[in-house]
Each structure stands twice: as C-alpha cells, then as structure tokens.
C-alpha cells in the first residue's frame, strides 16, 4: 500500500469512528447525576449510597431556616419528586424553578440528605423582562424565609 493510500485509509477510519461516537454512539447514558425518576427506580439499591441527584427545584417547596441554617426543598423531573434536606446557605443562584445537583445519600425515610448543593444553570441567557430585577428572587428567598 502506498504511503498516501495508507494515510487516507487511516483518516477514513478515524472520521468514521468519531462519526459513530457523535451520532448514536453515546446517548447521555453516562451521567454525572441521577434524575429523581432514576433514583426512585433504583428502589432499595438507591438508599444510603453516595449519589448525585439533579433536577428542578419545585416552586413553593423551599423552606429556609435562617437560624439553624436548614434548607429543605423538593427536586423534580416532572415525573417523580424527591425531598431534599441540606444545611448551610445555598449558592446565590439557588431559587425555585432553577436546576440543581445535590451530592449526598437518599435515606430510607425518603429524604435526600445533601452534603453538597450545586446550581445547574441552563444554556439560556436573557436580560430580565421589564419589571423584574435580577437577584430579587434570591433576596426574597434568603430574607423572607419560606417563599
């Protein structure tokens, strides 16, 4: 095989393999976090093992106790909902309706005890609509207790 044909063959195989990976090879099967539906579906295997849980904070579910630094809220993926308990002040972008990822353990009592709370931002960037002020929601959350 000539040097040139050899190089072309190599290039074709590389492009084909990358193409296979890009289209249909991996379908987000590999996850950084579980959704509530997936965590619930694990059943007994999901309890008391360290996992990450990701989903949307259910609006109206957030309870923040400023004195004991207890934060309770529910996380949903529109299919299942899991109650989460975390301590300490949340990241400043934390708010109802926002995506979050929590690290911790799902206890048999049905509450996810989070040791770490992270905000998962969407890929949307927009200025606030008229009348809205950025971060106002966070302030109301942090000052007003339950929102």
């Amino acid at each position: 095989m000539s040097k040139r044909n050899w190089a072309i063959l190599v290039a074709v195989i590389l492009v084909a393999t990358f193409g296979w990976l890009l289209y249909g090879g991996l379908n987000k099967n590999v996850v950084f976090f579980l959704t509530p539906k997936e965590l619930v579906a694990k059943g007994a295997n999901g309890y008391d093992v360290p996992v990450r849980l990701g989903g949307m904070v259910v609006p109206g579910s957030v309870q923040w106790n400023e004195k004991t630094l207890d934060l309770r809220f529910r996380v949903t993926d529109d299919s299942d909902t899991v109650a989460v308990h975390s301590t300490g002040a949340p990241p400043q972008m934390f708010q109802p309706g926002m995506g979050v990822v929590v690290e911790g353990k799902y206890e048999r009592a049905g509450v996810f005890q989070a040791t770490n709370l992270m905000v998962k931002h969407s890929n949307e960037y927009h200025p606030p609509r008229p009348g809205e002020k950025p971060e106002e929601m966070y302030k109301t959350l942090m000052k007003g207790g339950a929102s």
Partner: protein
Amino acid sequence: MEASNWMYVISAYVITWVILLGYLAYTHTALRRSRAEYDRVTGRAPGEGDAV
C-alpha cells in the same frame, strides 16, 4: 451579594489580562533574546538586523 458578584467578574477580567499581557511580555523577551543570539553568532552589531 452584588458586591461579591462584582468581585468574581473583576477578578476574571484581571486574570485574563494578567495572563495575556504576561504571555505577551514573554514572547517579546524570548524574541529579543533569540535576535541578540543571532546577531552575536553572525557577528553583526546588536540592533543592526531586523527590527523587532
């Protein structure tokens, strides 16, 4: 809250410029050194060659 947000934004821009200008300075120093070496080896007086 807002003040700390600005801290992050400002430090991001400061670090960007520290790294970019730092690397810029490094490229110029390295180029000047190479040219000096070239001039020394070829026996030309410094500065006689190509301007940086």
